[in-house]
């Protein structure tokens, strides 16, 4: 899948560049890409390091277990395959909470740790497990109660009421998450029956 999308973006992109006769810009963009990747990585690195450090304190003190316990009634239903008390559950719950509060920078490290734990109980190491996909659907639809970036951008442009978009955002993202989870459930069930044929 990733294979096709990646090739599609590159082939279409390069062809369009060539047809519109911007070869010089194309060469520049090709070289720029790698430095952009490094830039993004260097932006992420310190944040991930910092939060993984703080999170490790929360793990050692048992705080994350306490949180996971509080969310366990939802997690049990969303992730039926994860054994009870598995460490991935506490990272998943902290990821969900950080996302809801609009703390994207904190949510990512929690999510990465959750994936690491989910990979440990994954039977095929190069293939996404069902729990991983459900977890990513939660993240890609991005339930956020307080969308901090949008509010601050609206303030920057002197909105009369910067927070008026809170409710509409919550409705839209809530529907996206709900819809995503329902589709995920349906597809997973269908695929579950035929998966060894595909």
């Amino acid at each position, binding site marked *: *899948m990733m294979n096709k999308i*990646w090739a599609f*973006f*590159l082939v*279409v*992109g390069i062809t369009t*560049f060539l047809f519109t006769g911007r070869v010089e810009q*194309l060469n520049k*963009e090709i070289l*720029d*890409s*790698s430095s*952009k990747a490094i830039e993004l990585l260097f932006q*992420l690195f310190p944040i991930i*390091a910092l939060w*993984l*450090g703080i999170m*490790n*304190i929360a793990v*050692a003190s048992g705080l994350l277990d306490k949180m996971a316990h509080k969310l366990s009634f939802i997690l049990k239903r969303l992730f039926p395959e994860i054994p009870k008390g598995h460490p991935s559950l506490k990272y998943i719950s902290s990821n969900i909470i950080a996302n809801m509060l*609009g*703390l994207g920078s904190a949510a*990512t490290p929690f999510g*990465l740790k959750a994936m*690491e734990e*989910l990979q440990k109980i994954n039977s095929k*190491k190069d*293939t*996404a497990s069902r729990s991983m*996909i459900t*977890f*990513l659907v939660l*993240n*890609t*639809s991005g339930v*956020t109660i*307080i*969308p*901090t970036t*949008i*509010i*601050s*951008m*609206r*303030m920057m*442009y*002197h*909105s*009369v*009421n*910067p927070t008026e*978009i809170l409710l*509409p955002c919550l*409705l*839209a*993202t809530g529907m*996206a*998450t709900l819809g*995503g989870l329902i589709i995920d459930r349906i597809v997973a069930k269908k*695929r579950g029956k035929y998966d060894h044929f595909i």
Partner: protein
Amino acid sequence: MTILSNLMIPLIILYILLYACYKNVDLYDKFLEGAKESIDIILKMFPCMLAMIFSINIFLNSNFLSIILSFLKPFFEMIALPFDVIPMMIMRPISGSSTIAILNNLLSQFGPDSFIGRLGSVIQGSTDTTLYVLTLYFGSVGIKKIRYSLWVGLAADIIGIICAIIVTHLLF
């Protein structure tokens, strides 16, 4: 609101620290132990990030999307969708930084309290950058066969964007 969101991260960190003190945890050691793990994660992530940024960068800067969109313009005008928001809807699942840039333009050009400004804000809040999330998370654990995850993620994005349009029409 901003005061609240500014206070949130410090308060969370403070709470984690105080709780750990109360439980007699070796704070400093645990912090170092956790921070060290980031090196592994970053190293594993890098090739996937590079691959994705490379292809998305070429694709977006090729102007392929704007050429296609200019053909479709009459259609969007027919269904009463402001044309200026369309690029943002298409970019939302593909690139987070470009969506923010487009939203920034919309807010400065039309104002945050215009219909377009509000719709843009709600679209931004309705979903997350699916492609980025998939690349980052699957890349960090070395998963190559992503099965149906992309389709479900994109379906959720489409639901989010459609809801954003409906809700903005209804509430404002």
